[in-house]
């Protein structure tokens, strides 16, 4: 579904990503893990088109998209739930969701978003309760749900999520991940960027480990979970220390 070849990207003179190659197949959950500043968000920015300064090749459903603007990429069916939620805080929950459906409206002028709204409300019952509330007044977890729902309103073929667990209470994180799993069950494809490597690898099919802008490891999620280097650097286990301890 998504295939990236030799992607370089960065801000201004600063190059953050170097020669990234990866792919996501339909129906998969793929996760990208790595430390702060490794370039995970940059990678999603480059795929979604928010970051213009990129070279290499990005194919979405066999079509080249690395020169397209974010709105065109969304229109093709590749949506991003950005880091830090970024809901339209001065607008109501419903307005947020309706804006998410704009892409569908563009595909088909007569498209009626209300069916999708209902679907979202059944997926996130909390949002129905808060339909008329301003998005900025929601709690962090609710905002994250709104951001995911808003992206889903576009009926994307691939949904990318940037650190959905960031700053959320464990209970909420569990809810969010339950939803991601549910999305996959419904046949969605998910590209997940997470710092919480353990949780991410727990629900993903495959994973990539990114370090200082390069992919240093890739493989099945389970293999990565048991990989010693990964454990040491990203799972917070200093094996040497543990060895010493025991």
């Amino acid at each position, binding site marked *: 579904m998504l295939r990236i070849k030799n992607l370089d990207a960065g801000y201004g*003179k*600063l190059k953050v990503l170097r020669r990234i190659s990866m792919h996501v197949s339909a129906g998969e959950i793929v996760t990208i893990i790595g*430390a*702060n*500043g*490794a*370039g995970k968000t940059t990678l999603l920015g480059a795929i979604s088109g928010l970051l213009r300064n990129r070279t290499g090749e990005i194919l979405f459903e066999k079509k080249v998209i690395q020169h397209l603007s974010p709105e065109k990429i969304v229109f093709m069916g590749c949506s991003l739930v950005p880091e830090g939620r970024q809901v339209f805080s001065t607008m109501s929950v419903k307005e947020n969701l309706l804006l998410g459906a704009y892409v569908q409206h563009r595909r088909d002028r007569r498209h009626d978003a209300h069916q999708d709204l209902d679907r979202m409300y059944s997926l996130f019952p909390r949002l129905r309760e808060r339909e008329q509330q301003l998005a900025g*007044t929601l709690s962090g977890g609710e905002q994250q749900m709104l951001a995911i729902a808003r992206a889903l309103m576009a009926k994307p073929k691939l949904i990318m999520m940037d*650190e959905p667990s*960031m*700053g*959320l*209470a*464990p209970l909420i*994180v*569990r809810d969010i*991940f339950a939803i991601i799993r549910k999305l996959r069950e419904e046949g969605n494809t998910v590209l997940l960027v997470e*710092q*919480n490597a*353990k*949780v991410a690898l*727990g*629900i993903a099919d495959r994973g990539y480990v990114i*370090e*200082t802008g390069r992919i240093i490891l890739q493989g099945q999620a389970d293999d990565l979970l048991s990989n010693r*280097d990964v454990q*040491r*650097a990203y*799972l*917070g*286990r*200093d094996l040497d*220390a*543990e060895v010493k*301890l025991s």
Partner: protein
Amino acid sequence: MAILAVRDLNKRFGGLQAVKDVSFTVTAGSIKALIGPNGAGKTTLFNLISGVLSPDSGDIFFGDMQIEGMKPFQIAEKGMSRTFQHIRLFPNMTAIENIMIGRHTHSRAGFIAGMFSLPWTWKEESRIRSRSREILDFLGISGLADSESTSLAYGQQRIVELGRALACEPKLLLLDEPAAGLNIKETAEMANLITKVKNLGITVLIVEHDMSLVMNISDEVIVLSYGQKIADDVPLAIQKNTEVIRVYLGEEEC
């Protein structure tokens, strides 16, 4: 002896309680680490200590001075300097010029002296320059002195930023995620440098995500979660603390 003591610190942004009743001390000459999940309030706490933000309530003692509410430059003059999570080097300046800015608090040429280029300022300038060179040597990057700061590699920029903070000759050095974006090898180098800094007798307070770094070099670790302190102990104890494991390492999840 505590060089830094924080007592009942609170900071609220709108509806979010970013720092809640946090108290801790940092022993002179030690390395203390501050960890916690994203959004736990680590950077806010750092900003409160370094004067970027002023607390809603609570006290911060630096040595025997009460410093909360002071401006960052005043706190820097008192002998506390810091680095930034997102590198904040001065663009359009060379590496050595960046470090020379660090000598600001230790020199005094003002506007009038500068305009008239008074002879004593020449001597001061050359002192600043030679001291900055020493710092570059100490960090092992003397070869980069005249490179434009923004053209340096990421890891080198981190080191220059460390050097800039060292040039203040701080009693307390605050490092905000010094290993962010570094690879394993660079992280190890950074760990070495930080230990070297400690050996100079400088106290270090560090915010870091990289556990290998934190656990290897720090003498004590504080864990924050939702703006509250949930643990404050030596690294080995922290690693075994179930509360910490639950909120931070995510052991119980999934």
